[in-house]
């Protein structure tokens, strides 16, 4: 009995810890700028002020569009490449694959500060400096290790007999992929796409260093700038934070199961 009470008490306190920030964001975003004072932080707004969302939406719409463009293209490209790579590593192990695979995986753990300077120069030299396409290229390349890993572990579950049967039917490398492996890949693609979407949408370091012009900024950079400025009233950053969080939050709420699978796949073992 006491055990039950303690158990629910723990859950209650933990829920407060996780949800209080959410309450504060929503309440602050819905207050008039003049009504936001530090001493009344936790009180409900006296007038519900929806204007903050209108303002944040107009200010952030171009940045949200940038983020969408960048995230969707980079996610799809890295998922496609990851699927092909995973297929090769799971079913057509070429000589040296055992050495190449860990070397690939290492790429997803490195601190990007260790490649940032040559990367910055490289992107500028190939004429993509400051553009979203430069950022897309970067996200595709550094996304390859994790997408390859998830697909490789996923395809390892496909029985080798199915591949063998395909070969007996006369299908080759590409035929087996398009007729047997790819049609079975939908859950794998869901996991990878959700994972990459969340990662790229939320990414900040590349975005803040590689994109200089405000016109091309993704949402994370714009939000950090807005919240970092001292003069702004807090209703706007809070509304902006909600807008920036919404896409990944919706994905999490509706497809949480797949999100968690991606999360656990990041710890290498399938």
């Amino acid at each position, binding site marked *: 009995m006491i055990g039950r009470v303690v*158990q629910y008490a*723990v859950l209650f306190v*933990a*829920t407060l*810890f*996780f949800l209080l*920030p959410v309450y*504060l964001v929503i309440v602050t975003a819905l207050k008039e700028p003049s009504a936001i*004072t*530090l*001493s009344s*932080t936790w009180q409900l707004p006296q007038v519900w002020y929806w204007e903050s969302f209108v303002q944040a939406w107009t200010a952030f719409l171009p940045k949200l569009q940038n983020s969408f463009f960048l995230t969707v293209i980079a996610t799809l490209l890295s998922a496609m*490449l990851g699927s*092909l*790579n995973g297929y*090769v590593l799971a*079913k057509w*192990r*070429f000589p040296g694959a055992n050495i*190449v695979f860990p*070397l*690939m995986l*290492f*790429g997803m753990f*490195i*601190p*990007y*500060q*260790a490649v*940032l*300077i*040559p990367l910055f120069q490289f992107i500028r030299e190939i004429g993509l400096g400051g553009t979203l396409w430069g950022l897309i290229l970067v996200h595709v*390349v*550094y996304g*390859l290790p994790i997408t390859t890993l998830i697909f490789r572990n996923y395809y390892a579950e496909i029985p080798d007999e199915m591949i063998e049967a395909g070969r007996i039917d006369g299908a*080759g*490398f590409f035929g087996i992929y398009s007729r047997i492996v790819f049609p079975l890949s939908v859950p794998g693609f869901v996991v990878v796409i959700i994972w990459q979407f*969340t990662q790229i949408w*939320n*990414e900040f*370091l590349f975005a*803040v260093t590689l994109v200089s012009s405000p016109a091309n900024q993704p949402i994370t950079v714009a*939000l*950090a700038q807005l*919240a*970092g400025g001292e003069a702004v009233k807090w209703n706007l*950053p*809070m509304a902006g*934070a909600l807008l*920036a969080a919404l896409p*990944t939050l919706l994905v*999490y*709420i509706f497809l*949480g199961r797949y*999100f968690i699978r991606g*999360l*656990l796949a990041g*710890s*290498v*073992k399938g």
Partner: protein
Amino acid sequence: MNWFRNKDTLYGFLVILPSLVLLGIFVYGFIFQTFYTSLTDWGRDPAQALSANPQIRFIGLENYRELFTGFVDARFRQDLVNTFFFTVFFILGCLSLGLGLAIVLDRSPKGEGFFRTIFLFPMSLSFIVTGTIWRWMLQPQGGVNQLPTLVGLPRGEFAWLTSREQIWQVSWNDLPFITALVVSAVLVFIAIAAFRGGERRRGYIASGSAALLLLWALTLGRSLQPLPFDELHGFNLAFIGIILAAVWQMSGYTMALYLAGLRGIPEELREAARVDGASEWQLYQRIIFPLLAPITLSAMIILGHISLKIFDLIFAMAGADNAPTDVPALLMYLTTFRANQIAKGAAIGMILLLLVAAVIVPYLYSQLKSEVRR
């Protein structure tokens, strides 16, 4: 081409080749280039830093020497100490909160799915969003400090991110000595565990290295003085807020890992222990926690490499210029892209890489080795 089993394996290789080339350039090529840059004086002369054809001279390990022992780079050394404390408390926080929540959820309370969703949702947010929210939560006059007033208590007075206090100060000159002591303590611990487990060879190696290290520390360790003067570094209390926000964001991850682990322990095992008269606490202590040990290790490594790289959260919470909450990842950005000290920024990047590699390479090795065995 006869070392390819057949035509299809060759196709496979050709399909993966572009990815390999890209990663080869973007990971290893660029790391090598950063390393080379870190051995030059690029950016020392401000006029050369931004010119189209900078004149760069090779100066060896000078940048590294300055970072660890130079007068001007005291900030970098404090950043290393910051990262150390941040990593320790962040990992401890995530592990204990995650394990606690997982144990409670594993007992299938009502609304389990709801609670799981709540505890894990911050994982889907950007560190920038989290940082923005917690920046507002931790305003010295408002937010968290106002919470006690809701139940009639006086307002909290802690300055959070704007705190300038520092505790547990140590001189930089004592660090080699202290590090040696800590490492040998760990080695002794490993040795004891090995002797108990009957792995004598491992025990001898570990205790031998511990003895050697202790001998060095007690004889020569004291005379290794990186700096000609005492420079005190400690734990900046401003980091408490950052740790809080980071634990808020990432403890759901450890919860998910532990919950998956707990669900994998067969019910029969618990039943058997209960039948043998084990109390609930003994059940956890003797059976469940040992089974969760590998998960704890993976979680520590994943969280550890995240905390070494932490950048966006601090950028959004405290700003890039707030010195008490600085870390090497931020300093690299400031040094390279704001101060144009490109070579020194490259050196900081390489040091970060070494720290992360020290954690990740053994991990990848053991993960993939056990996979081959499977």
